[in-house]
């Protein structure tokens, strides 16, 4: 009998397995319950697969979308609907990162304790950080181009502008054919990875400032071509011969040959380190929405190390990550984590969320950031037309023209930040097949930023 008593412990082991498994489940429900409840099969909050509760507003309190049992009600203004499409999302769940899908749990007022139970069945009011007026300006500035525009406050993290194209009117959704790759349902600011072109020189520059001794005395004579081997393709080229440039001039003129030289001096390992540190290859979470992860691959040396260091080769960068990097340069190395939710309120207007403003890791050293800021200011003045092209803006920027090979028009990038009084904003503009970076994307950026400082 004594032996038997001891063996009975086995039953307790089984019970322990059950308790541990149950504990694990309760923890998972605590962690992910919101996502589970927000799954479109949940008939408590979805009607025929459509969210039937909750409203979305912009930061000014403009109603952008109201989910009702009779279907969605969007803003009455067509251009507002289109401009905020990807931020707000649709009622069909096609735009996965749209607030209406990604923040479904908040719209229905899910919490661990109450689930989705609601006495009045009205759901919550979700106030986004975006300003629909700015989005409208951005959407119009973009015109018929595809691409994306993002503007965010690098001190508080609020994303005030988030536009992605192609777009459509959510009130009258188009038939999208299977296999369509235009990215109509994709919020490119969050989900795209795009060849960064010369905007990547901001990373290479940070590495150069930190690791090359007497970088101030750097000098390079650009003949328009830097040949690596005998074959014709083994070269780095510039659009024209930049002549003799120093480091500042190399960045201002975006001289590929000079940066090829710099990449050789910095070396593979350091480039890898700085690409990683910059956050351009990391994944961010914007109120839980995951950004696409960029990638950069640095060969040991030679022509491809050079191309990788000037934003070509296999480099791919997510626009939002670039915007955050610009914000970090502006903010002395660390930027605020971008966020899209301003507040969540009960249907009677009482607050239902706690404000929270976390910072990113240090993406760039403080003094390096300050040096780089100075260089970016110089870019604007020397290469982008300064005050005449960007009147009234205290602008710091870098353009990019991402070569795509073949006969394709390059993607046009413009990223940076402004330090105008009361307007600490970082931005990124990507115009697909937009041609010359500072021209196409630069002028769009100006239109948007003018609206931002005059808010």
């Amino acid at each position, binding site marked *: *009998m*004594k*032996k*038997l*008593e*001891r*063996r*009975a*412990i*086995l*039953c*307790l082991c*089984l*019970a322990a*397995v*059950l*308790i541990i*498994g*149950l504990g*694990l*489940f*309760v923890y998972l*429900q605590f962690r992910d*319950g*919101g996502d*589970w*409840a927000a*799954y479109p*099969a*949940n*008939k*408590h*909050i979805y009607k025929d697969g459509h969210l039937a509760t909750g409203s979305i507003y912009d930061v000014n309190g403009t109603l952008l979308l109201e989910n009702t049992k009779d279907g969605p009600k969007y803003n009455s203004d067509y251009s507002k609907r289109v401009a905020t499409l990807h931020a707000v999302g649709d009622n069909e769940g096609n735009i996965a990162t749209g607030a209406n899908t990604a923040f479904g749990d908040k719209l229905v007022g*899910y*919490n*661990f*304790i*109450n*689930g*989705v*139970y609601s*006495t009045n069945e009205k759901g919550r009011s979700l106030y986004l950080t975006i300003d629909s007026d700015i989005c409208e300006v951005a959407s119009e500035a973009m015109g018929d181009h595809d691409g994306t525009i993002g503007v965010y406050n690098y001190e508080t993290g609020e994303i005030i502008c988030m536009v992605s194209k192609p777009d459509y009117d959510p009130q009258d959704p188009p038939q999208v054919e299977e296999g369509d790759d235009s990215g109509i349902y994709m919020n490119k600011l969050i989900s795209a990875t795009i060849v960064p072109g010369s905007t990547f020189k901001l990373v290479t520059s940070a590495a150069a400032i930190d690791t090359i001794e007497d970088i101030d005395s750097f000098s390079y004579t650009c003949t328009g071509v830097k040949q690596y081997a005998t074959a014709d393709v083994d070269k780095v080229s510039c659009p024209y011969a930049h002549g003799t440039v120093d480091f500042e001039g190399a960045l201002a003129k975006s001289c590929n040959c000079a940066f090829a030289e710099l990449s050789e001096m910095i070396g593979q390992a350091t480039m890898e380190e700085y690409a990683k540190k910059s956050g351009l290859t990391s994944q961010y979470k914007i109120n839980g929405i995951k950004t696409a992860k960029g990638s950069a691959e640095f060969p040991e040396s030679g022509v491809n190390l050079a191309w990788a260091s000037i934003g070509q080769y296999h480099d791919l960068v997510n626009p939002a990550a670039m915007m955050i990097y610009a914000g970090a340069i502006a903010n002395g190395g660390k930027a605020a984590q971008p966020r899209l939710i301003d507040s969540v309120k009960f249907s009677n207007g009482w607050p239902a969320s706690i404000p929270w403003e976390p910072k990113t890791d240090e993406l760039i050293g403080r003094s390096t950031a300050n040096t780089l800021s100075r260089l970016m200011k110089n870019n604007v003045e020397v290469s982008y037309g300064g005050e005449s092209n960007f009147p009234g803006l205290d602008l710091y920027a870098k353009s990019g023209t991402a070569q795509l090979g073949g006969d394709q028009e390059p993607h046009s990038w413009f990223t940076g930040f402004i330090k105008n009084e009361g307007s600490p904003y970082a931005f990124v503009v990507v115009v697909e097949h937009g041609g010359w970076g500072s021209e196409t994307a630069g002028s769009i950026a100006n239109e948007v930023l003018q609206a931002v400082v005059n808010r």
Partner: protein
Amino acid sequence: MYESFSAAAQPLMEKLSGLFESYPILATYYTTVARWIFVALALFILIRSILSLLRSKNPSEIWAYLALPDGNNRPLRHWENVLGRAKSADVHIDIMTVSRNHGTLCRDASGNWRYNDLGSTGGSEVNGKPVTGSTRVKPGDTITMGGADCVLVPASVREKEENLRVRKTFTTRFAPWSCLVALTIFQIMACIQFIAAKGADFPAPVLFGFMIFTVIMWTTCIVLRAMGSTAFEMETIVFFLCTLNLCVVATASPERIMTQLIAIVAGIILFFGLCWYLRDLDRGLKIRRLLVILGALLLLVNLAFGHNEFGAANWISIPGLGTFQPSELVKIAFIFIGSATLDELYQKKNLTLFIAFSIFCLGCLAVMGDFGTAAIFFVTFVIISFLRSGEFSKLVLIGAVSVVGILLMIRFQPYIATRFTTCFHAWDDPDNLGYQQTRAMSAGSSGGLFGMGGGNGWFHEVGASDKDLVFSILSEEWGLVIAVLAVLSIVTLGVFAVRSIMAGRSSFYTIAACAATSLFIFQTTLNVLGSLNILPFTGVTFPFVSNGGTSMMASWGLLAFLKAADTRQDASIAVRKENTLEEGGMS
């Protein structure tokens, strides 16, 4: 009669639903408040029962003494004792000529002691006569083991009184009345909640069903109390689970409420019947052969006439009575056959019968395609084997064989393989392979801790949700707290059974209680964790809670094994009272 009673419930229902219809806000506020009260009531009922169960001890009893050659008297604390040189022997005799497990000294229900030799090296004698088989030992008789003389000394009257006193003091009386009142409030409020949720659509027979159940619950406890019973924790816990079962049935298939009620009544009768039967150890032993035959027949009938429902051909239709699952009832027989007294544990042929029966059961279940139940039988088999042999190496061997078995199963039944791959990855394919689990989790999490209110769910629309995914129905409509409490109820039954065997009288009861407990716990584990994406989804029922008549009856039947291990004074109708001192052959 049913119609007339049902008609009697109708006006009450119409009045309530009319009230809620004219003031819809009333229904909303009722649910808002009631969902908290339900949780509070459930907590009250369970915490009271669980604390009482865990606080009470099963006192160790002294049934007689064995006087050893060194002059010491060793108490015999069980009905079945191993005598030997091993440290683990119940009576440890530290003499070199005594074998490690020399012999067994067992008492039957009427107080007669018998000695048997376990094939010892030195042999045994009773009063100088060599022992060849089970031999009666009277008080004062001398048992000689390997030359060492021991004398059976009866427990004195004072000690018997002490036994009784200790048992009585250790038995904290558990008055079930406050819990029953709380449960009754729960049931009444649940009915109102259903009417608030469903309005006039709510079928009156369900209301009537709840009323009958309330009456059954009170009657059972009053009758037990009248019979002198003092412990009601298990019954209270199980009545709570049955109430949840009725709530599930009311929401998922209200038309089955009467069938389910009949199953509960049949279960309770089975429970009492088995408890009475288990009072007498000899009776329990005698019926085993019959049960082997019956169990085997049931499975064979199942194989021949079974039809497929929810992926396994383990259902039999009986015209006019509905469907039932024979494999559920075979569980009871399985435990009867697996359990053994100490004497039997040392006889090989007993184990052979058990192993043969196990293989037969597993084979039948595999042919039916009921791999969930097969897994339950298998784990129970492993537990019983381990309890009987205690060999850890055997456990490892069985484990290895089972891994091979699972691999073979996956090889020949590809759909099982997909269940294994879906486990933990339901959200990767939410509308196909993970269909049931994702809906279970989505609906379940919607309820939060306090639920959406009974009758306010949609998850019951998912196939088999009231059986295999019942945890999520509870979680959706009644809240995660109540769903977790339901699981903890099962665990409590288990922990209590394990504790009570510490003072076990016969290894038969001990093994049976442990096996029944393990079966409950493992079945709950498969049901709950399988539906929640943590284990492969097997489609087995949650004891007492899932909708299903046979499962309900089998659960009550298995409960009898737990009750039989409860040796607290007057705690259990499955334990014959020992408070009459004159009883038995010792005095």
